[in-house]
Structures are given as C-alpha cells and as structure tokens.
C-alpha cells in the first residue's frame, strides 16, 4: 500500500489523531458524492475503519447555488473501529454559501472550515437567500476559516491545456480533494488510478483533473494557512481482505450468495423507488448469475410476479420503500395464505405518504407487521449496518425457504446509502441452504399440498412434477388437502397454525447477545440505529454507568430469551427513529414499562443525544427508580 510519504511527501509537522469526521458540501453539480467516495475508499485502503453518510437533495438537480441544491457527503475515518459517521464535524468543506449555511450547524467549535472564497459573490449570496456574506458577518467566527480561491487556482492549474473555463471549473472538486487529501495525509494514488479509468476516453479531462488534484495538494503544502497535517493510523480490524460496501450493494450481493447457496435462480420483481432502486439496478447487472430482474408496471405487479416466480421454484424477491410496500399489502397477504417463500424488502424512508423520500426513518415496522387484512403473520428481520445486509439477506432466505413463508427484511435510507468496510467472506465456507422439493407423486393419488412437517412448513411442490398437480389460492384452505374450506373449526385451526409456524422460527434464532452491565438500564435497539446505540452505550459504560445494550435482529418472532433478559434490568430504553413501534410491541408482550426515545427528523441518531438519554435514565435509575417512564421526544417546539 502506498503511503502519502512515498507519493507526495508532506514536509509540514504531522499531528496524530484517533479519528476524523469530514463533510464535503456543495452543489449537486459539484461532484461532492464522488469526492466523498474517493476519500472514503482511500481511507479504507489505508487501513482506517470508515463510516459514511451521504445526504442528497430531494430534487434531481435543484437550481445551482440554492439551498435546495446542496449535496453533502460525510465520512468518518478512524484508527479504532467505529459504528457511525460521527456527530460533530472536525472539518467542513463548503463549495458555496448555500452549502455553508446549511451545514455549519454540525461543525464543532474551532473546527476547520474550508471554503471556495470565490463563490461568495453577491449573486451567490442571493441564490442562497443571504443578505450578507457569512464569511464577513461573524457567522463563522467560532471556526478555523480557510478561504481558498479555488476557482482561479484550478483554472491556472489547467490553463496550459486550454480547455475553456467551463471545463476547467468542473475540476474544482479535484482541487478540493487534493487539499483535503493533503490535510489528512491520504494517498492520492488510488484517485489518480480512478481518474485514468473514469476518463480513459477523455485524456485531456483526465489530465486536467490530475493537475487540479496535485494543485490542491500543493496548495496545502505551500500556503501558510495550514500549520499541520493530520495523521490517522490504521485501525486494528480483524485480518482479511476488505472492501468498502454500501448497504444496497451488500444486500444485492447477499441475494446472489443466497441464490447460489440454495441453488435457486434469483427473480426480482420490482418497481423503482428511492431509496430501493439501486438494488434493482445492481441486480440487473448480474444476469450471468442467472438473475432475472423484472421492472414491473407497479408495485402490485412487482410482488405478484415474484409470487408467481416462487410458485415456479425461484428464489423470489421484491424490493421497495414505504409507499410501494403499502401497495403490496394485498399481494403479501396472499403469499401468507399460499405459504410460498418470498423475500420482501422495505428500505424505509421518511413518511407518511410521499414524506421525505431521500431521508431515513424506521417508521414502517408496524406496517410490515400488521398492514394486511385478517390474521396474517409474517416474520420480520432487520439489518443493522451496510455490511450486515449481506448476512441478513442470507438468513432471511434460509428461514423463508425452510418455513415456506414470505418474510420482511427491513433496511433504511441511512443503511442503504451508507458505506463501511466489509471483510470478504470465504465464499466456499458459507453454509449451504438445503431446499427440497417433493418428487413425482403416485398416479390417481390426490396430492396433499398442505400436509406439514415438524416445523409446520408445507412442501414446495413445483409445476412440472408429475402427479403433484394442485391448486392454491386466497380463500381459506382445508388443513392437509388445501381445498377451499368454509368450515369454522378448520379456519380457526389454520389461523392458529400459520401463527404457530412463524412462532417456530424462534427456534432458529441464536441466543441474544447482551453488551455491558448485568443490571441497571438496558438499551434495546433494532435496525440502522445499531451503530449510534452501541457507541452511546460504550461511552456511557466508560463513564461508569450501569447500562447494557441488546440489538434485535428479529422483530418477529422475538428471540425466546428476550423476556428473561428484559426482566433482569430495572429500566429499559428503546430509542427509535419513529414514535415508538418496538416500544409498543415490547410493552404489550412483556408488560415491561419500557421508556422510549423517539426521533422523527429524517436523520439518524447522534451518539451524544443518546448518551444524554442514557444518563437521564441511568441516573434516575440510581434514584427512586419508580419514576414513570415517559416517551421522550427529540421534538423541539
């Protein structure tokens, strides 16, 4: 691995730090996402643990320079292993006034603020709806402001190539990149390689970007603005080969793996919707894995086509987000009745209705559990981080195919677009997913499609198998034969059986891991808040508080040991990015007076706010302990 010193040796003093959180903000046109991705990958390559949080504007391309058009990318790289992209920013790069004002709140005091000083003209301020320049009016007083005339510096750097200012200005982000890379002693080699590949067809553009990158680096090295550079040592991650994965990517790969492990061809029926679309895009590229992707006319067709494929013996999958999942309710209800394996993904986003499509939330939990007519039980599993999507998907398919049931897999916008290092699994050592189909039946003997095994799963008989011809449908069916039945007792029996089957899944769930204290306050979390909760609990433990952490992977059924664990603690805190979905389920099932911490702002938890909540309850816990738990809220009216 090339270290900075070999490539562009920096002569300035180096300051060692454990971790750094940087956010790059500019116009959606400014290529901030690209800049961020490069910084992330390079940091990962240099052995840091990394976590990222991209923040897209809702519009495709809102007018240049407006607040609505600001695109941000936050990355944290550290020498210890980390679970979140960080709370407060150590550094903010703002390419224009809109980017500055919309992001400044997150920059910690005396944090580094790098701006393109040439993008603060009156017209720029006007676009950002600002009367005065934040650089002059004291707004930025608390920070270490570094004004860089990026536009002209970049133009100069590429002048010889005379490409015209329009193209020259497009290189600005590489200039900024060079500067940031210098500041944090990042290796520029991978990015130079990236430039070569990406602009292979446009050699002069490639050269311009290379020069801009170098110019930015040199600027840091030569100017007086920077006293020191910062060095983040490699993290002590378990040995192995790593790559950086985004949540939806790991999810798609998990599907490929599950398909191969079970030797079932993968079928995806989907209709595009943010933030789930990328799964469709990714899988549509894996045709050589035998993956069939079907972009349906709507979500109803998406789920129904998947059920049809499941009937035919495929590993059937359908992906969507809130509004689309709502539309699939009826179809999923049929899958419950048919008892066919099907994976339904809900990549949650801000709701209700169209809500906040590009923001994250956990507010679909109760919908996926209860959003169907009649008694319609479905297992629900939730991924906790980008890389965790890989194993979650494999586990989901193992259960769905074993129990012949549709299953919900929950992710969210934060996981889907976030990235973290992932240790590549040894593919050969992944345990296979055995699936059996009954062979040809006996002529003249009626086949019994609803005769169940010990786990209450029915057989998966495939069309094409002689003498197993059978009809399934949405009307209540007779036990064993599967014929239509209106018999009252049979209906009760089938309702109970479908419920018991899902409950049986608990037998496949490993014992629950409890991190931290044996008593005191238990923090119970699920899904994408894992990183923030775990970090908050660790910090609180360091401060000597009696607090423990349990993170639920299974929302239905619950692990069988959960009730016993809950009773071991005096207080239970359930932080959720909703108004308390899991909290309701836990209170109803275990009658424990669990407190909730609710945040519904389209944003993930910050570690600090969780630590605050933990302190609130952990201390109350040392006190009377009888204070009634209340649903706290991050609302500020």
């Amino acid at each position, binding site marked *: *691995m090339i270290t900075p010193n070999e490539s562009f040796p920096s002569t300035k003093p180096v300051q060692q730090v454990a971790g750094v959180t940087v956010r790059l903000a500019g116009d959606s046109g400014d290529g901030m996402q690209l800049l961020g991705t490069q910084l992330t*990958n390079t940091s*990962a*390559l240099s*052995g840091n643990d990394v976590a990222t949080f991209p923040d897209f504007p809702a519009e495709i391309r809102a007018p240049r320079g407006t607040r609505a058009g600001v695109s941000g990318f936050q990355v944290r790289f550290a020498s210890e292993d980390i679970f979140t992209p960080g709370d407060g920013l150590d550094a903010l790069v703002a390419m224009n006034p809109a980017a500055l004002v919309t992001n400044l709140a997150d920059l910690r005091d005396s944090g580094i603020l790098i701006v393109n000083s040439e993008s603060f003209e009156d017209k720029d301020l006007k676009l950002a709806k600002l009367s005065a320049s934040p650089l002059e009016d004291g707004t930025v007083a608390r920070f270490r402001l570094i004004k860089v005339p990026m536009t002209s510096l970049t133009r100069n750097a590429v002048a010889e190539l005379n490409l015209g200012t329009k193209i020259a200005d497009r290189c600005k982000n590489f200039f900024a990149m060079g500067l940031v890379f210098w500041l944090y002693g990042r290796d520029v080699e991978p990015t130079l390689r990236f430039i070569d590949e990406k602009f292979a067809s446009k050699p002069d553009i490639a050269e311009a970007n290379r020069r801009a990158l170098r110019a930015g680096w040199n600027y840091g090295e030569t100017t007086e603005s920077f006293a020191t550079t910062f060095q983040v040592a490699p993290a002590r*991650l378990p*040995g*192995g*080969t*790593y*790559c*950086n*994965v985004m949540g939806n990517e790991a999810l798609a*790969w998990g599907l*490929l*793996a599950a398909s*191969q492990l079970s030797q079932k061809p993968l*079928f995806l029926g989907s209709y595009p919707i943010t933030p789930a679309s990328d799964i469709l895009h990714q899988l549509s590229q*894996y*045709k*050589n*894995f*035998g*993956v*069939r992707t*079907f972009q*349906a*006319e709507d979500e*109803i*067709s998406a789920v*129904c*086509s*998947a*059920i*049809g*494929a*499941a009937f*035919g*013996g*495929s590993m*059937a999958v359908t992906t969507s987000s809130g509004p689309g999942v709502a539309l699939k309710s009826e*179809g999923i209800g049929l899958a419950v009745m048919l008892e066919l394996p099907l994976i339904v993904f809900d990549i949650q986003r801000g709701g209700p209705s169209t809500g906040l499509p590009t923001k994250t939330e956990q507010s679909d939990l109760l919908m996926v559990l209860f959003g169907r007519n009649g008694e319609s039980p479905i297992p629900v599993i939730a991924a906790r981080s980008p890389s965790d999507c890989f194993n979650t998907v494999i586990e989901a398919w193992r259960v769905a195919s074993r129990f012949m049931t549709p299953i919900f897999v929950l992710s969210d916008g934060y996981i889907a677009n976030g990235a973290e290092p992932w*240790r*590549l699994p040894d*593919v050969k050592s992944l345990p296979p997913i055995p699936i059996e189909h009954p062979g040809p039946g006996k002529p003249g003997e*009626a086949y019994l499609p609803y005769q169940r095994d010990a786990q209450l799963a029915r057989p998966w008989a495939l*069309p*094409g198998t*002689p*003498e*197993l*011809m*059978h*009809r*399934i*449908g*949405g*009307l209540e069916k007779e036990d064993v034969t599967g*014929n*239509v039945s209106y018999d009252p007792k049979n209906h009760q029996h089938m309702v109970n059986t479908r419920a018991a089957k899902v409950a049986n899944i608990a037998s496949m769930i490993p014992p629950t891991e409890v991190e931290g204290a044996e008593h005191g306050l238990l923090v119970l979390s699920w899904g994408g808040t894992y990183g923030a909760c775990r970090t908050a609990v660790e910090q609180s433990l360091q401060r000597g508080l009696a607090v423990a952490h349990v993170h639920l992977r299974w929302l239905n059924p619950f692990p069988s040991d959960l009730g016993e664990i809950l009773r071991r603690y005096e207080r239970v805190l359930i932080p959720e990015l909703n108004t308390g979905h899991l909290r309701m389920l836990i209170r109803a099932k275990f009658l424990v007076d669990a407190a909730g911490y609710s945040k519904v702002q389209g944003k993930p938890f910050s570690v600090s706010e969780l630590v605050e909540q933990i302190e609130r309850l952990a201390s109350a816990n040392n006190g009377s302990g009888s204070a009634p738990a209340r649903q706290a809220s991050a609302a500020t009216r």
Partner: protein
Amino acid sequence: MSIDLPVLKPTDFASDQDVRWCPGCGDYSILAQMKKVLPDLGVRPENTVFISGIGCSSRFPYYMNTYGIHSIHGRAPAFATGLKSTRPDLTVWVITGDGDALSIGGNHFLHAIRRNIDINIVLFNNSIYGLTKGQYSPTSPVGHRTKSTPRGSIDYPLNPISVAIAAEATFVARSIDVHAPHLIETLRRAAEHRGTSFVEVYQNCNVFNDGAWDHFTGKETKDDTLLHLEHGKPLVFGKNRDKGIRLHGLVPEVVQLDGTVALDELLFHDEALADSQMAFLLSRLRYPHFPEPIGVFRNVKRPSYDQLLNDQITDAIAEQGAGDLESLFKSSDTWVVP
C-alpha cells in the same frame, strides 16, 4: 405434435372438485371446451398452469387437474408473468373476467400484452360482476341498470379487443361460450401462438345478466349478427352468405351481395398484417350496426418477453462467464488487513 406422447383425454384434465357455478352458467361450456382442447396440445397436465384472479370465472383453475393459482382480484397477468419468465417450459393460461381483467386489472392486462409474455389470456365477458351479485362492469352498455346503477350506467364501455390491439397485442381473438367447435378452434390457435394470446369469450351470466349475447347465439339471428373471420378471405356473412363488408375510404359499410357488388370489392381479412389498423378497424364493428367478428383478429410474430429475458441471461453467461461470487467481490477496490 401430440402423436409421440401418451394420448390424453379431456377427463385427464378434470380435477376432483365439484363445479360450483350456477346451473346454466356459460362458464360450464367454456370449461368443457378447454378440457377438450388441452389433450390436443401435447402438453402434460403437470406442465400446464392455470392462473386466475377473483370472480365466478376465476374459480376455473379449481376444476382443472393441472397446477393452478386462484390469485387476487385483477392481478393474474402479473403472477403469470413472474411464473412464465422463470419457467418458460410451462404452458401458462390466465383465466379472467370483464371486471377482473378490465376494471381492477386493466393495467396488468395492458402491460402483459405489450410485453408479449408467452401466456394465453381468456377473458370471460359476461358484461357484469357475477360473483359480487350483479354490478355493471367496464363492458356493460351505457344505460345498463344494475344494483349499482339504478338509473342506468353512465360509463362508456371499453372494447376489450380494441384495447388489446392498442396495447400492441400479437394475438387477438373472440369466441362465444356456446359455440363449442368455434371456441375449441379459437383456444387451440391461442395456445399455439408464441407470445401473449388474448381471447375474449362472450359468456352468459344467466343469473345477473341473462341473455346479454342472445342475438349472437340465437339460431335465427346468429348468422346475421356474427362475422366469421377467416384469414385471406373476404368479409362475408348472412344466412345465405349474401352480405359483405366493404371499405369506403376508412369507413366500413355493409353491402348486399346481390350481384351488383363483386367479392373482390370487399375487405379481405389479413390476420398477419404487421400494422394493427386492420385488426383495430374490425374491432370497431359492433352490433347492431354491423355483425360482430368472431375468430382471430390478429396473429403476428414478435419475440416474447420470456424469450428475450432468457436470451439476455444466456448471452450474459456466454460473454461474462457464469457468475462467480469470489471474483465479483474482489472486483471492487479491496485491501488486506494482516
């Protein structure tokens, strides 16, 4: 093609379930004819799948000794698309009603047809919602008085054949429940077509819309109210085949074949015409102004969705080699932690 296979009988396709339609329902005849057609197709029961939505007509799959799904209202084409895309080896039939296919299911109907997925859609058109006991449907005529339209329907009806043609259908036909031989022949041709085959069947609901098609089934009237489409033949009809259809510009007219008009002045049917305007024009011939065409309106070749999809898979494997996880994962920027 069926010769080198063990010979099947209609009864081989009958399930053990008692049929539960009203006595006298037109569905019985369609069921009977279907059972007669299937043995001739050379497809085993286990390789045949019937998928339906919800409605009286959609009870159909229960009565067939094949694989089947009695799915949800209006969505049968979507289930069929998923199944056929992944199992091109199966013969997939969709059984639907006028409400199921054209009301709640209109969108899936359109898209299955335009994709030309290789399935056979049979629409039982009784111009009424049977199962829900008699509300008007998208094919009910204006003014039709039903439970939900006591003052008569004000919805202008859809013409299923026109809609299918506009949706780029490659096979479109019409038949009638009680015209057994014609229905058998029509179903057979639909089954033989590769791509989406759409067959509209006029079906009598003798409980909630009795006699809707009497003028097409009545011994006395049917020769003058029906126009049998025959590929390459002029459009002639009438008890004594003494009437024909002639084009006047783009406007069809009925002419008497009393010697004043020569046969070759008539419009000749060409079901294989690449352009769809001929088929569309025929779909506009409605009783009482014109006899209504039955038979095959359109029958053209276009690669089916399932074929194209599976070709892309084959090509991808040929070009990129069978997918390998190891190398896929490694293909992105990786680094090693000792």
